[in-house]
């Protein structure tokens, strides 16, 4: 009798653990399957497990993205800063300087002076746009710097 008690307690504990694990596992599966079936997809053909072909494709895509180190959810683009009146005026002048220089195909000391007057008044997005236009024009040979001064 005493010997029987020795193995009865661990066995009962193990059976209880298995039962609890099975119960929790099945509940989790239901949650996962529910997440795979958003509203509005009730008419989508499904497999015997309740998974649709679209569900399988989506899971495969997510796993491949995770394996490649790609972020699952792309970061939203940073909102553009809305320029105030002063910034808008400065950007307009900077645009005129750039366009005039490109039409002459030359970036002169006078252009650098004119740009330095308005560049600090622009917001960072506007400054970045001017830098981008200048860089593209120089690399494409549409704008030749005539001065070794820093242009901005």
């Amino acid at each position, binding site marked *: 009798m005493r010997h029987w008690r020795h193995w009865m307690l661990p066995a009962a504990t193990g059976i209880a653990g298995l039962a609890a694990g099975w119960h929790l596992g099945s509940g989790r599966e239901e949650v996962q399957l529910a997440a795979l079936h958003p509203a509005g997809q009730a008419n989508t053909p499904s497999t015997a497990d309740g998974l649709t072909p679209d569900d399988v494709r989506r899971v495969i895509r997510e796993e491949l993205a995770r394996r490649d180190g790609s972020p699952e959810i792309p970061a939203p683009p940073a909102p553009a800063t809305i320029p105030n009146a002063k910034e808008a005026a400065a950007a307009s002048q900077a645009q005129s300087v750039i366009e005039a220089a490109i039409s002459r195909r030359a970036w002169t000391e006078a252009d650098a002076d004119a740009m330095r007057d308005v560049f600090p008044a622009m917001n*960072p997005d506007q*400054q*970045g746009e001017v830098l*981008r236009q200048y*860089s*593209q024009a*120089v*690399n494409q040979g549409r704008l030749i*710097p005539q001065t*070794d001064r820093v242009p901005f």
Partner: protein
Amino acid sequence: MNKVILTCLALCAGGLAFGGSRFTGNGNVVIARSADGSGTASGFLGMIYNGPAMKQWIGCQRSESDNVFCHALDETGTTPVACSVKSAFLAKSISSISPDARLTFMWNAQGTCIRIQVTHSSEYQDKQG
């Protein structure tokens, strides 16, 4: 007296012999362009400043908003290049530029800076004067 002079000469010669390895190139700005408009520019800031070349220059700047701008011209004076990008990551590289550094930057076909490399070495000379 002669012994003193000989000792000085020996010490001077010894000092030169243990000066360490030095970069022996001219350090000039080198620009490589690809057909799609992308490219690379590099140069040794101290050597360009100290050397006899008159036209070439290379440099980068960053703003407080991490707008980055790099530009260069080689000694031919005919192939200026430039790139820009808004990047806190690349802006950090510009902060580490020193007068004896070797600077390399790369840009893509859109003129966007995609890489800025700053190299420091005991072999590179500092700006003089």
